[in-house]
């Protein structure tokens, strides 16, 4: 082979080998993340949490996968969810937030990752920018995602009295979208939070027929106010 061709083939082969190795590592980390998510689903479905040792084993598997293939936001999210289960340790929420924030850094367009941060910050008792900024981002990025809608509406209405006007607007926009998807569920969340009147303002956005009892409840709210 001519030296000129070798100068092209050898770097190309090295590049190909590097890509192949990265692909194998990514595939392996994806496999670990998949198995971890399945395992956690089994725990909750059976109602039997595995105890500290079982959680720790899964964390060790995921951390090994993260070392071999850094940059997988799914692994960060699962590690965060595992930390949320370790509430026997005072720092569990802070550790979960580290993983959720890393997931956001790796995949800033994911509304689910922002919603994870909202959930963890709420459980920490956060108010103000710490929770409102991720709440607005989740609402902006996932306006039609049911789980994101639930999180934004639930925590948004919980903190309603303390929120900035732009956060309230984001929550109201999410309520509008959620009323179109499932009005009864949205009204139920608002009612649980003692904020039925906020959701009732969007009753007209519900395209499907809503139980007449909800309409009566909403009318009652209007008369009261």
């Amino acid at each position, binding site marked *: 082979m001519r030296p000129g061709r070798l100068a092209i083939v050898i770097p190309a082969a090295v590049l190909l080998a590097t890509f192949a190795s990265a692909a194998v590592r990514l595939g392996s980390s*994806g496999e670990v993340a998949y198995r971890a998510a399945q395992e956690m*689903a089994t725990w909750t*479905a059976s109602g039997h949490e595995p105890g500290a040792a079982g959680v720790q084993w899964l964390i060790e598997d995921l951390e090994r996968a993260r070392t071999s293939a850094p940059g997988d936001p799914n692994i960060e999210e699962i590690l965060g*969810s595992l930390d949320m289960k370790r509430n026997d340790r005072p720092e569990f929420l802070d550790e979960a937030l580290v993983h959720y924030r890393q997931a956001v850094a790796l995949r800033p367009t994911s509304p689910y990752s922002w919603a994870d941060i909202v959930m963890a910050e709420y459980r920490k*008792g956060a108010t103000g920018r710490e929770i409102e900024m991720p709440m607005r981002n989740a609402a902006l990025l996932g306006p039609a995602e049911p789980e994101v809608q639930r999180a934004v509406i639930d925590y948004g209405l919980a903190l309603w009295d303390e929120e900035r006007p732009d956060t309230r607007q984001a929550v109201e926009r999410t309520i509008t979208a959620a009323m179109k998807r499932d009005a009864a569920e949205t009204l139920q969340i608002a009612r649980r939070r003692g904020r039925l009147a906020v959701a009732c303002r969007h009753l007209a956005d519900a395209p499907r027929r809503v139980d007449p009892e*909800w309409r009566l409840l909403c009318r009652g709210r209007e008369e009261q106010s």
Partner: protein
Amino acid sequence: MKRISILLALLTLFVAEVAMAAGAVVTSLAGSVQVQTGSAAPRALRVGDEVAQGDTIFTGANSSIVMKFDDGQIAALTANSRMQVNTYSYDPPTQRGNILLSLVVGGMRAITGFIGHNQPNNVRFHAATATIGIRGSDGMIITDGTDVAVTVTEGAFTFTLGTQTIVIPAGRGALGANGQITPGTAQQIFNRLPQNFQSAIGGLEGLTNSINEALEGRQGQPNPPPPPPPPPSQTPGPNTPTGGTGGGSASSR
């Protein structure tokens, strides 16, 4: 394809977490009430928050809270109370489960739900060194951490202190102090209570409206007339339970 599989697995996880959530929902709250989960720092509780096994609830001065558990059990706390949810499990299809609540200090009104109705032996309250069992539906427990007073409005409670156990029927009460249980009418018990105990009872009586709203599932909403039977395509009504985000992970999809 693998990434889609991961996302599907996480969605399964989310749905399962919402379905398996067991505990209580805060239906009414006044003043400053905090909850401590495990060994995390206490955080403020708000209406609609969930309280689960392992949580400890603290009420501040001039504060109160009403919680409704999944089986319909009501627990209302008056000001300056501290209560731990030691055990709460509930299986809706069989309406069976287990409740153990510890009132460390303060006043609590307890109204039993399905578990108390179906398995009265599985509903217990600890207050200081006393254990209170449920044989009925409605009563108050007050403790300063040492002495314990119980009054029963409906049904009957059992009151155990040391080796002594008595049954307290409706309209009566008992005071447990210095290792002895002294029964009497509810009024006699009330008259013998120190001022701080009487204040706690007054605070609990002030929660009657909030407790009634929780019992009716209204949470401060107007009570409409019963709706006509829904057509098959209709969306669920206000009394149809739906899962909130609660403690579930929003990360799952």
